[in-house]
Protein backbone atom coordinates (compact mmCIF):
# COMPACT_ATOMS: atom_id res chain seq x y z
CA UNK A 1 0.00 0.00 0.00
CA UNK A 2 1.36 3.40 -0.82
CA UNK A 3 0.18 6.86 -0.09
CA UNK A 4 -2.98 6.78 -2.14
CA UNK A 5 -4.92 8.36 0.73
CA UNK A 6 -2.57 11.30 1.15
CA UNK A 7 -4.07 14.00 -0.97
CA UNK A 8 -7.78 13.37 -0.87
CA UNK A 9 -9.16 16.88 -1.36
CA UNK A 10 -11.78 17.82 1.18
CA UNK A 11 -13.99 19.30 -1.50
CA UNK A 12 -14.62 15.83 -2.96
CA UNK A 13 -16.05 14.58 0.32
CA UNK A 14 -19.70 14.14 1.01
CA UNK A 15 -20.97 17.61 2.11
CA UNK A 16 -22.00 16.26 5.52
CA UNK A 17 -18.54 14.83 6.11
CA UNK A 18 -16.72 17.96 4.98
CA UNK A 19 -18.91 20.12 7.23
CA UNK A 20 -18.26 17.87 10.24
CA UNK A 21 -14.50 18.10 9.53
CA UNK A 22 -14.61 21.87 8.97
CA UNK A 23 -16.33 22.44 12.30
CA UNK A 24 -14.07 19.94 14.09
CA UNK A 25 -11.00 21.81 12.82
CA UNK A 26 -12.59 24.96 14.27
CA UNK A 27 -12.86 23.19 17.63
CA UNK A 28 -16.49 22.11 17.58
CA UNK A 29 -17.31 18.41 17.28
CA UNK A 30 -20.79 17.67 15.92
CA UNK A 31 -23.06 14.71 15.63
CA UNK A 32 -26.17 14.12 13.56
CA UNK A 33 -29.41 14.74 15.35
CA UNK A 34 -33.09 14.52 14.48
CA UNK A 35 -34.38 17.92 13.28
CA UNK A 36 -37.75 17.13 14.89
CA UNK A 37 -36.22 16.61 18.32
CA UNK A 38 -35.80 12.84 18.77
CA UNK A 39 -32.16 13.41 19.71
CA UNK A 40 -28.79 12.26 18.46
CA UNK A 41 -28.55 9.55 15.80
CA UNK A 42 -25.62 7.45 14.63
CA UNK A 43 -23.40 8.98 11.97
CA UNK A 44 -24.76 6.68 9.23
CA UNK A 45 -28.30 8.08 9.60
CA UNK A 46 -29.55 10.32 6.79
CA UNK A 47 -33.04 10.37 8.22
CA UNK A 48 -33.98 9.93 11.86
CA UNK A 49 -34.22 6.16 12.51
CA UNK A 50 -37.05 6.84 14.98
CA UNK A 51 -39.37 9.24 13.14
CA UNK A 52 -38.04 9.54 9.58
CA UNK A 53 -37.51 13.31 9.72
CA UNK A 54 -34.28 14.85 8.39
CA UNK A 55 -31.15 14.94 10.51
CA UNK A 56 -28.99 18.00 11.12
CA UNK A 57 -25.63 18.75 12.69
CA UNK A 58 -25.60 19.57 16.39
CA UNK A 59 -22.57 20.24 18.62
CA UNK A 60 -21.68 17.55 21.17
CA UNK A 61 -19.81 17.79 24.45
CA UNK A 62 -16.74 16.09 23.01
CA UNK A 63 -16.75 13.61 25.89
CA UNK A 64 -17.10 9.88 25.52
CA UNK A 65 -15.75 6.43 26.28
CA UNK A 66 -13.70 3.93 24.30
CA UNK A 67 -16.14 1.38 22.85
CA UNK A 68 -13.30 -0.46 21.13
CA UNK A 69 -9.89 0.23 19.62
CA UNK A 70 -7.20 -1.31 17.46
CA UNK A 71 -3.56 -0.64 16.76
CA UNK A 72 -2.45 -0.38 13.13
CA UNK A 73 1.07 -1.53 12.35
CA UNK A 74 1.03 -0.56 8.67
CA UNK A 75 1.26 2.99 7.41
CA UNK A 76 -1.51 3.87 4.98
CA UNK A 77 -0.99 7.60 4.71
CA UNK A 78 1.76 10.06 5.51
CA UNK A 79 -0.16 11.91 8.21
CA UNK A 80 -0.54 8.75 10.25
CA UNK A 81 2.83 7.10 10.84
CA UNK A 82 2.53 3.51 12.13
CA UNK A 83 1.92 2.32 14.71
CA UNK A 84 -1.16 4.38 15.45
CA UNK A 85 -4.28 3.63 17.47
CA UNK A 86 -7.81 4.02 16.15
CA UNK A 87 -10.47 4.49 18.80
CA UNK A 88 -14.13 3.77 18.30
CA UNK A 89 -15.44 6.39 20.69
CA UNK A 90 -18.95 6.25 22.09
CA UNK A 91 -19.87 9.89 22.61
CA UNK A 92 -21.85 10.75 25.74
CA UNK A 93 -24.70 11.68 23.35
CA UNK A 94 -24.75 8.09 21.98
CA UNK A 95 -23.21 8.00 18.50
CA UNK A 96 -19.93 6.17 17.89
CA UNK A 97 -17.13 7.75 15.91
CA UNK A 98 -13.71 6.53 14.75
CA UNK A 99 -10.90 8.84 15.80
CA UNK A 100 -7.14 8.69 16.16
CA UNK A 101 -5.82 8.28 19.71
CA UNK A 102 -3.86 11.30 20.82
CA UNK A 103 -1.96 9.72 23.67
CA UNK A 104 1.77 9.82 23.04
CA UNK A 105 3.66 8.94 26.16
CA UNK A 106 0.52 8.39 28.18
CA UNK A 107 -0.90 5.24 29.72
CA UNK A 108 -2.24 2.53 27.38
CA UNK A 109 -5.89 2.86 26.58
CA UNK A 110 -8.56 0.28 27.34
CA UNK A 111 -12.19 -0.28 26.50
CA UNK A 112 -14.44 1.79 28.75
CA UNK A 113 -11.86 4.52 29.46
CA UNK A 114 -13.15 8.11 29.37
CA UNK A 115 -11.76 10.15 26.48
CA UNK A 116 -12.22 13.68 25.22
CA UNK A 117 -12.09 15.37 21.81
CA UNK A 118 -8.68 17.00 21.58
CA UNK A 119 -8.97 18.68 18.19
CA UNK A 120 -8.70 18.05 14.47
CA UNK A 121 -5.88 18.83 12.06
CA UNK A 122 -5.61 17.88 8.38
CA UNK A 123 -9.06 16.34 8.52
CA UNK A 124 -8.10 13.90 11.28
CA UNK A 125 -10.13 14.02 14.50
CA UNK A 126 -8.23 13.05 17.64
CA UNK A 127 -9.28 12.06 21.14
CA UNK A 128 -7.12 11.90 24.26
CA UNK A 129 -7.60 10.43 27.71
CA UNK A 130 -10.06 12.51 29.71
Amino acid sequence: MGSRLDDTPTKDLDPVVSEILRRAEAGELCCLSCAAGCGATDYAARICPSCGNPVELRPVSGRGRIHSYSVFHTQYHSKLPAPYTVLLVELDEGPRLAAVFDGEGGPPQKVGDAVVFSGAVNGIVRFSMA
Partner: protein
Amino acid sequence: MNVVRKRSAASAIIGLGESTFSRKPDKTARAHAVEACLDAVSDAGLKMAEIDGLLLNRSPIEASSVLPLHLKRDIGLGDLSLLASVEAEGSSAIQMIQYAALAIDAGMAEKVLCVFADAPVGATGGGDAYSISMNLVGLDGWDERHGLIGATGGFALSVQRYFHLYGADSNALYEAAAADREWAALNPKAFLRKPLDKEEYFASRWIVEPLRLFDCAYPVNGAVAVIVSGAESAADGPNSPVYVHGFGQGHSGARNFAGAEPEIQTGAGIAGRNLFGGLGITPGACDFCEFYNPFSITTILALEGYGFCKPGEGVDFIAGRATRPGGALPTNTGGGHLSSYYLQGMTPVHEAIVQIRRCGGERQVPSNNLGLVTGFGGRMEYHSAMTVSPHREI
Protein backbone atom coordinates in the same frame (compact mmCIF):
# COMPACT_ATOMS: atom_id res chain seq x y z
CA MET B 1 -38.55 -14.11 5.87
CA ASN B 2 -36.08 -15.90 3.63
CA VAL B 3 -37.19 -19.34 4.61
CA VAL B 4 -38.06 -22.53 2.81
CA ARG B 5 -40.48 -24.24 5.18
CA LYS B 6 -40.04 -27.80 4.03
CA ARG B 7 -38.62 -30.90 5.64
CA SER B 8 -38.54 -32.59 2.22
CA ALA B 9 -35.88 -30.89 0.14
CA ALA B 10 -37.11 -29.12 -2.99
CA SER B 11 -33.65 -28.69 -4.44
CA ALA B 12 -30.18 -30.15 -4.49
CA ILE B 13 -26.65 -29.36 -5.57
CA ILE B 14 -25.74 -31.88 -8.25
CA GLY B 15 -22.48 -30.50 -9.62
CA LEU B 16 -19.28 -29.08 -8.16
CA GLY B 17 -16.47 -27.58 -10.19
CA GLU B 18 -13.29 -25.74 -9.44
CA SER B 19 -10.44 -24.10 -11.29
CA THR B 20 -6.80 -24.65 -10.40
CA PHE B 21 -6.31 -22.51 -7.28
CA SER B 22 -3.15 -20.42 -7.27
CA ARG B 23 -1.22 -18.35 -4.75
CA LYS B 24 0.71 -16.67 -7.56
CA PRO B 25 -0.59 -14.14 -10.08
CA ASP B 26 -1.86 -16.29 -12.94
CA LYS B 27 -5.16 -16.07 -14.78
CA THR B 28 -7.97 -13.55 -14.61
CA ALA B 29 -11.01 -14.23 -12.45
CA ARG B 30 -12.99 -14.70 -15.67
CA ALA B 31 -10.61 -17.41 -16.93
CA HIS B 32 -10.85 -19.16 -13.54
CA ALA B 33 -14.66 -18.94 -13.78
CA VAL B 34 -14.68 -20.63 -17.18
CA GLU B 35 -12.59 -23.52 -15.84
CA ALA B 36 -14.83 -23.99 -12.80
CA CYS B 37 -18.05 -23.85 -14.85
CA LEU B 38 -16.84 -26.45 -17.34
CA ASP B 39 -15.71 -28.64 -14.45
CA ALA B 40 -19.08 -28.37 -12.68
CA VAL B 41 -21.08 -29.26 -15.79
CA SER B 42 -18.82 -32.24 -16.42
CA ASP B 43 -19.03 -33.29 -12.75
CA ALA B 44 -22.84 -33.27 -12.95
CA GLY B 45 -22.80 -35.39 -16.10
CA LEU B 46 -24.67 -32.69 -18.00
CA LYS B 47 -24.24 -31.09 -21.40
CA MET B 48 -23.83 -27.31 -21.44
CA ALA B 49 -27.08 -27.10 -23.42
CA GLU B 50 -28.95 -28.47 -20.39
CA ILE B 51 -27.98 -25.44 -18.27
CA ASP B 52 -30.80 -22.89 -18.48
CA GLY B 53 -29.77 -20.51 -15.70
CA LEU B 54 -26.53 -18.75 -14.75
CA LEU B 55 -25.82 -16.75 -11.59
CA LEU B 56 -22.53 -14.93 -11.10
CA ASN B 57 -20.76 -13.52 -8.07
CA ARG B 58 -17.57 -11.51 -8.09
CA SER B 59 -15.57 -10.04 -5.23
CA PRO B 60 -17.26 -6.88 -3.93
CA ILE B 61 -14.04 -4.96 -4.45
CA GLU B 62 -13.87 -5.76 -8.18
CA ALA B 63 -15.59 -4.03 -11.08
CA SER B 64 -18.47 -5.79 -12.84
CA SER B 65 -16.29 -6.17 -15.94
CA VAL B 66 -14.16 -8.69 -14.04
CA LEU B 67 -16.98 -11.24 -14.18
CA PRO B 68 -19.51 -10.00 -16.75
CA LEU B 69 -22.77 -11.55 -17.88
CA HIS B 70 -20.87 -12.33 -21.10
CA LEU B 71 -19.34 -15.24 -19.19
CA LYS B 72 -22.31 -17.11 -20.66
CA ARG B 73 -20.73 -16.79 -24.10
CA ASP B 74 -17.30 -17.86 -22.81
CA ILE B 75 -18.67 -21.20 -21.69
CA GLY B 76 -20.83 -21.78 -24.75
CA LEU B 77 -24.23 -21.35 -23.15
CA GLY B 78 -27.20 -20.79 -25.42
CA ASP B 79 -30.57 -19.30 -24.57
CA LEU B 80 -31.17 -18.99 -20.84
CA SER B 81 -34.28 -18.36 -18.77
CA LEU B 82 -32.38 -17.00 -15.73
CA LEU B 83 -29.30 -14.77 -15.69
CA ALA B 84 -28.08 -12.37 -12.99
CA SER B 85 -25.11 -11.21 -11.01
CA VAL B 86 -25.60 -11.40 -7.24
CA GLU B 87 -23.83 -8.76 -5.16
CA ALA B 88 -24.14 -9.22 -1.42
CA GLU B 89 -20.45 -9.59 -0.56
CA GLY B 90 -19.55 -12.83 1.21
CA SER B 91 -23.16 -13.85 1.65
CA SER B 92 -23.60 -14.07 -2.13
CA ALA B 93 -22.58 -17.70 -2.70
CA ILE B 94 -25.41 -19.09 -0.58
CA GLN B 95 -27.75 -16.40 -1.87
CA MET B 96 -27.05 -17.61 -5.43
CA ILE B 97 -27.95 -21.16 -4.42
CA GLN B 98 -31.07 -19.88 -2.65
CA TYR B 99 -32.21 -17.83 -5.65
CA ALA B 100 -31.48 -20.75 -7.96
CA ALA B 101 -33.56 -23.05 -5.73
CA LEU B 102 -36.43 -20.56 -5.56
CA ALA B 103 -36.33 -19.98 -9.33
CA ILE B 104 -36.40 -23.72 -9.96
CA ASP B 105 -39.28 -24.13 -7.51
CA ALA B 106 -41.13 -21.34 -9.34
CA GLY B 107 -40.63 -23.00 -12.72
CA MET B 108 -38.19 -20.42 -14.09
CA ALA B 109 -35.34 -22.84 -14.74
CA GLU B 110 -34.28 -26.45 -14.25
CA LYS B 111 -30.50 -26.51 -13.96
CA VAL B 112 -28.79 -23.38 -12.66
CA LEU B 113 -25.04 -22.86 -12.72
CA CYS B 114 -23.72 -20.60 -9.91
CA VAL B 115 -20.13 -19.40 -10.02
CA PHE B 116 -17.78 -17.27 -7.90
CA ALA B 117 -14.35 -16.27 -9.17
CA ASP B 118 -11.64 -13.99 -7.88
CA ALA B 119 -7.98 -13.23 -8.53
CA PRO B 120 -6.83 -11.06 -5.60
CA VAL B 121 -3.27 -12.36 -5.53
CA GLY B 122 -1.10 -9.94 -7.48
CA ALA B 123 2.62 -9.27 -7.63
CA THR B 124 2.73 -8.05 -4.00
CA GLY B 125 0.71 -10.92 -2.52
CA GLY B 126 -2.89 -11.26 -1.52
CA GLY B 127 -3.47 -9.09 1.52
CA ASP B 128 -3.34 -5.65 -0.08
CA ALA B 129 -6.44 -6.37 -2.13
CA TYR B 130 -8.52 -6.17 1.03
CA SER B 131 -7.13 -2.87 2.34
CA ILE B 132 -10.39 -1.15 1.62
CA SER B 133 -12.74 0.81 3.82
CA MET B 134 -15.67 -0.95 5.46
CA ASN B 135 -17.29 2.41 6.17
CA LEU B 136 -18.24 1.35 9.68
CA VAL B 137 -18.93 4.85 11.02
CA GLY B 138 -21.23 5.69 8.12
CA LEU B 139 -19.55 8.88 6.88
CA ASP B 140 -18.04 8.48 3.40
CA GLY B 141 -14.26 8.66 3.56
CA TRP B 142 -14.17 9.02 7.35
CA ASP B 143 -12.75 5.61 8.22
CA GLU B 144 -9.89 5.84 5.68
CA ARG B 145 -9.06 9.38 6.78
CA HIS B 146 -8.72 8.16 10.36
CA GLY B 147 -6.63 5.16 9.38
CA LEU B 148 -9.38 2.61 9.98
CA ILE B 149 -8.47 0.53 6.95
CA GLY B 150 -9.49 -2.88 5.75
CA ALA B 151 -11.66 -5.72 6.91
CA THR B 152 -8.83 -6.52 9.34
CA GLY B 153 -9.27 -3.09 10.94
CA GLY B 154 -12.99 -3.62 11.34
CA PHE B 155 -12.62 -7.09 12.81
CA ALA B 156 -9.82 -5.96 15.13
CA LEU B 157 -12.42 -3.68 16.75
CA SER B 158 -14.73 -6.71 17.10
CA VAL B 159 -11.97 -8.72 18.77
CA GLN B 160 -11.14 -5.97 21.25
CA ARG B 161 -14.80 -5.55 22.09
CA TYR B 162 -15.22 -9.32 22.53
CA PHE B 163 -12.14 -9.48 24.79
CA HIS B 164 -13.58 -6.68 26.91
CA LEU B 165 -17.07 -8.18 27.23
CA TYR B 166 -16.05 -11.76 27.92
CA GLY B 167 -12.56 -11.51 29.37
CA ALA B 168 -10.97 -13.53 26.57
CA ASP B 169 -7.48 -12.93 25.19
CA SER B 170 -5.29 -13.87 22.22
CA ASN B 171 -5.22 -17.50 23.32
CA ALA B 172 -8.84 -17.75 22.18
CA LEU B 173 -7.86 -16.63 18.69
CA TYR B 174 -4.93 -19.04 18.65
CA GLU B 175 -7.20 -21.97 19.54
CA ALA B 176 -9.60 -21.08 16.71
CA ALA B 177 -6.79 -20.75 14.17
CA ALA B 178 -5.06 -23.94 15.36
CA ALA B 179 -8.31 -25.93 15.14
CA ASP B 180 -8.75 -24.93 11.50
CA ARG B 181 -5.13 -25.79 10.78
CA GLU B 182 -5.59 -29.26 12.25
CA TRP B 183 -8.34 -29.88 9.69
CA ALA B 184 -6.21 -28.41 6.91
CA ALA B 185 -3.49 -30.95 7.64
CA LEU B 186 -6.00 -33.60 6.51
CA ASN B 187 -6.99 -31.73 3.33
CA PRO B 188 -4.62 -32.25 0.38
CA LYS B 189 -6.03 -29.12 -1.29
CA ALA B 190 -5.41 -26.82 1.68
CA PHE B 191 -2.59 -24.31 1.27
CA LEU B 192 -1.40 -24.16 4.91
CA ARG B 193 -1.11 -27.69 6.32
CA LYS B 194 1.67 -27.60 8.89
CA PRO B 195 0.27 -27.71 12.44
CA LEU B 196 0.13 -24.23 13.96
CA ASP B 197 1.96 -24.26 17.28
CA LYS B 198 1.48 -21.58 19.86
CA GLU B 199 4.98 -20.16 19.52
CA GLU B 200 4.64 -19.68 15.77
CA TYR B 201 1.22 -18.10 16.17
CA PHE B 202 2.35 -15.61 18.81
CA ALA B 203 5.50 -14.80 16.83
CA SER B 204 3.52 -13.95 13.69
CA ARG B 205 3.34 -10.27 12.86
CA TRP B 206 0.50 -7.96 13.76
CA ILE B 207 -1.76 -7.08 10.86
CA VAL B 208 -4.04 -4.89 12.96
CA GLU B 209 -3.61 -5.55 16.66
CA PRO B 210 -5.14 -7.71 18.16
CA LEU B 211 -5.20 -9.65 14.85
CA ARG B 212 -2.02 -11.41 13.76
CA LEU B 213 -1.12 -12.84 10.38
CA PHE B 214 -2.43 -16.31 11.27
CA ASP B 215 -5.78 -14.85 12.33
CA CYS B 216 -6.43 -13.83 8.73
CA ALA B 217 -7.69 -15.60 5.63
CA TYR B 218 -5.34 -17.01 3.01
CA PRO B 219 -6.38 -15.51 -0.34
CA VAL B 220 -5.90 -17.43 -3.57
CA ASN B 221 -6.83 -16.93 -7.20
CA GLY B 222 -9.52 -19.35 -8.27
CA ALA B 223 -13.15 -20.13 -8.92
CA VAL B 224 -15.77 -22.57 -7.66
CA ALA B 225 -19.03 -23.37 -9.45
CA VAL B 226 -22.02 -25.43 -8.39
CA ILE B 227 -25.11 -26.64 -10.23
CA VAL B 228 -28.49 -26.46 -8.54
CA SER B 229 -31.33 -28.73 -9.64
CA GLY B 230 -34.82 -29.58 -8.49
CA ALA B 231 -34.81 -32.50 -6.07
CA GLU B 232 -36.97 -34.70 -8.34
CA SER B 233 -34.26 -35.16 -10.96
CA ALA B 234 -31.27 -34.69 -8.67
CA ALA B 235 -30.49 -38.37 -8.32
CA ASP B 236 -30.39 -38.93 -12.10
CA GLY B 237 -26.78 -37.78 -12.37
CA PRO B 238 -23.52 -39.52 -11.44
CA ASN B 239 -23.22 -37.91 -7.98
CA SER B 240 -25.08 -38.36 -4.73
CA PRO B 241 -27.24 -35.23 -4.48
CA VAL B 242 -26.50 -32.66 -1.83
CA TYR B 243 -30.02 -31.81 -0.71
CA VAL B 244 -30.73 -28.33 0.59
CA HIS B 245 -33.71 -28.15 2.95
CA GLY B 246 -33.59 -24.61 4.18
CA PHE B 247 -32.10 -21.19 3.72
CA GLY B 248 -31.96 -18.22 6.05
CA GLN B 249 -30.75 -14.73 5.42
CA GLY B 250 -30.16 -12.14 8.13
CA HIS B 251 -28.98 -8.59 7.66
CA SER B 252 -28.39 -6.75 10.90
CA GLY B 253 -30.00 -3.40 11.53
CA ALA B 254 -27.72 -2.66 14.51
CA ARG B 255 -26.37 0.89 14.38
CA ASN B 256 -23.15 2.37 15.71
CA PHE B 257 -24.95 3.88 18.67
CA ALA B 258 -25.04 3.40 22.44
CA GLY B 259 -26.77 0.20 23.46
CA ALA B 260 -26.05 -1.73 20.25
CA GLU B 261 -23.23 -4.24 19.96
CA PRO B 262 -22.75 -4.62 16.19
CA GLU B 263 -19.28 -6.09 16.81
CA ILE B 264 -20.77 -9.09 18.61
CA GLN B 265 -24.45 -9.27 17.68
CA THR B 266 -24.30 -9.82 13.95
CA GLY B 267 -26.60 -10.96 11.16
CA ALA B 268 -25.79 -14.54 12.21
CA GLY B 269 -28.46 -14.53 14.90
CA ILE B 270 -31.11 -13.39 12.45
CA ALA B 271 -30.07 -15.81 9.69
CA GLY B 272 -29.93 -18.66 12.21
CA ARG B 273 -33.42 -17.92 13.52
CA ASN B 274 -34.79 -17.77 9.97
CA LEU B 275 -33.05 -20.97 8.94
CA PHE B 276 -33.62 -23.15 12.01
CA GLY B 277 -37.02 -21.63 12.77
CA GLY B 278 -38.16 -22.23 9.21
CA LEU B 279 -37.13 -25.86 9.38
CA GLY B 280 -38.45 -26.37 12.91
CA ILE B 281 -35.11 -27.64 14.16
CA THR B 282 -32.47 -26.43 16.60
CA PRO B 283 -28.76 -25.89 15.89
CA GLY B 284 -28.13 -29.13 17.80
CA ALA B 285 -29.53 -31.04 14.82
CA CYS B 286 -26.39 -30.14 12.84
CA ASP B 287 -23.59 -32.69 12.67
CA PHE B 288 -21.01 -30.27 11.31
CA CYS B 289 -20.52 -26.62 10.37
CA GLU B 290 -18.78 -24.86 7.52
CA PHE B 291 -18.57 -21.21 8.51
CA TYR B 292 -17.50 -18.26 6.47
CA ASN B 293 -14.42 -17.48 8.60
CA PRO B 294 -12.00 -14.93 7.17
CA PHE B 295 -10.72 -14.13 10.68
CA SER B 296 -10.22 -16.41 13.68
CA ILE B 297 -12.71 -14.38 15.74
CA THR B 298 -15.49 -15.05 13.24
CA THR B 299 -15.66 -18.77 14.04
CA ILE B 300 -16.17 -17.87 17.71
CA LEU B 301 -18.85 -15.30 16.81
CA ALA B 302 -20.55 -17.73 14.40
CA LEU B 303 -20.75 -20.53 16.98
CA GLU B 304 -22.40 -18.07 19.35
CA GLY B 305 -24.50 -16.25 16.75
CA TYR B 306 -25.98 -19.41 15.25
CA GLY B 307 -26.76 -20.69 18.73
CA PHE B 308 -24.27 -23.53 19.22
CA CYS B 309 -22.90 -21.72 22.28
CA LYS B 310 -24.08 -18.93 24.51
CA PRO B 311 -22.44 -15.52 24.05
CA GLY B 312 -18.94 -15.66 25.48
CA GLU B 313 -18.82 -19.46 25.54
CA GLY B 314 -17.47 -20.06 22.05
CA VAL B 315 -13.91 -19.68 23.33
CA ASP B 316 -14.15 -22.58 25.79
CA PHE B 317 -16.08 -24.64 23.24
CA ILE B 318 -13.19 -24.35 20.78
CA ALA B 319 -10.48 -24.70 23.43
CA GLY B 320 -12.21 -27.93 24.53
CA ARG B 321 -11.48 -29.30 21.05
CA ALA B 322 -15.18 -29.66 20.09
CA THR B 323 -14.62 -28.20 16.63
CA ARG B 324 -11.45 -30.18 15.84
CA PRO B 325 -11.18 -33.59 14.14
CA GLY B 326 -12.84 -36.10 16.46
CA GLY B 327 -14.77 -33.36 18.28
CA ALA B 328 -18.51 -33.15 18.90
CA LEU B 329 -19.08 -30.47 16.25
CA PRO B 330 -16.59 -30.74 13.37
CA THR B 331 -16.21 -27.19 12.06
CA ASN B 332 -14.45 -25.71 9.03
CA THR B 333 -13.44 -29.24 8.11
CA GLY B 334 -11.29 -28.37 5.12
CA GLY B 335 -9.27 -25.83 7.10
CA GLY B 336 -11.61 -22.94 6.34
CA HIS B 337 -10.58 -19.54 5.07
CA LEU B 338 -7.57 -19.36 7.39
CA SER B 339 -5.80 -22.54 6.35
CA SER B 340 -7.33 -24.01 3.19
CA TYR B 341 -8.03 -21.10 0.85
CA TYR B 342 -10.09 -17.92 0.74
CA LEU B 343 -12.56 -17.90 -2.13
CA GLN B 344 -15.17 -15.98 -0.16
CA GLY B 345 -18.58 -17.66 0.05
CA MET B 346 -17.57 -20.67 -2.00
CA THR B 347 -14.94 -21.99 0.45
CA PRO B 348 -17.55 -23.25 2.96
CA VAL B 349 -19.97 -24.31 0.21
CA HIS B 350 -17.29 -26.42 -1.51
CA GLU B 351 -16.29 -28.17 1.70
CA ALA B 352 -19.91 -28.87 2.65
CA ILE B 353 -20.49 -30.61 -0.67
CA VAL B 354 -17.35 -32.71 -0.20
CA GLN B 355 -18.57 -33.80 3.24
CA ILE B 356 -22.11 -34.64 2.13
CA ARG B 357 -20.73 -36.68 -0.78
CA ARG B 358 -18.42 -38.50 1.66
CA CYS B 359 -15.41 -37.50 -0.39
CA GLY B 360 -13.55 -36.00 2.58
CA GLY B 361 -10.92 -38.76 2.81
CA GLU B 362 -8.97 -38.40 6.04
CA ARG B 363 -11.07 -35.42 7.09
CA GLN B 364 -14.46 -37.00 6.40
CA VAL B 365 -16.81 -36.28 9.30
CA PRO B 366 -18.25 -39.47 10.84
CA SER B 367 -21.85 -38.23 10.80
CA ASN B 368 -22.94 -36.06 7.89
CA ASN B 369 -26.73 -36.18 8.09
CA LEU B 370 -27.07 -32.43 8.37
CA GLY B 371 -24.53 -29.65 7.91
CA LEU B 372 -24.72 -25.90 8.37
CA VAL B 373 -23.09 -23.68 5.76
CA THR B 374 -22.81 -19.91 6.20
CA GLY B 375 -21.68 -16.82 4.38
CA PHE B 376 -21.37 -13.20 5.40
CA GLY B 377 -20.50 -9.78 4.11
CA GLY B 378 -19.48 -6.54 5.73
CA ARG B 379 -18.36 -6.99 9.30
CA MET B 380 -20.76 -9.97 9.70
CA GLU B 381 -23.59 -7.57 8.94
CA TYR B 382 -25.02 -9.50 5.98
CA HIS B 383 -25.58 -13.21 6.51
CA SER B 384 -26.87 -16.14 4.52
CA ALA B 385 -27.02 -19.73 5.67
CA MET B 386 -28.29 -23.09 4.44
CA THR B 387 -28.45 -26.69 5.52
CA VAL B 388 -27.05 -29.54 3.44
CA SER B 389 -27.85 -33.23 3.70
CA PRO B 390 -27.40 -36.50 1.80
CA HIS B 391 -31.07 -37.29 2.60
CA ARG B 392 -33.99 -35.83 0.76
CA GLU B 393 -36.19 -36.10 3.85
CA ILE B 394 -35.04 -34.85 7.23
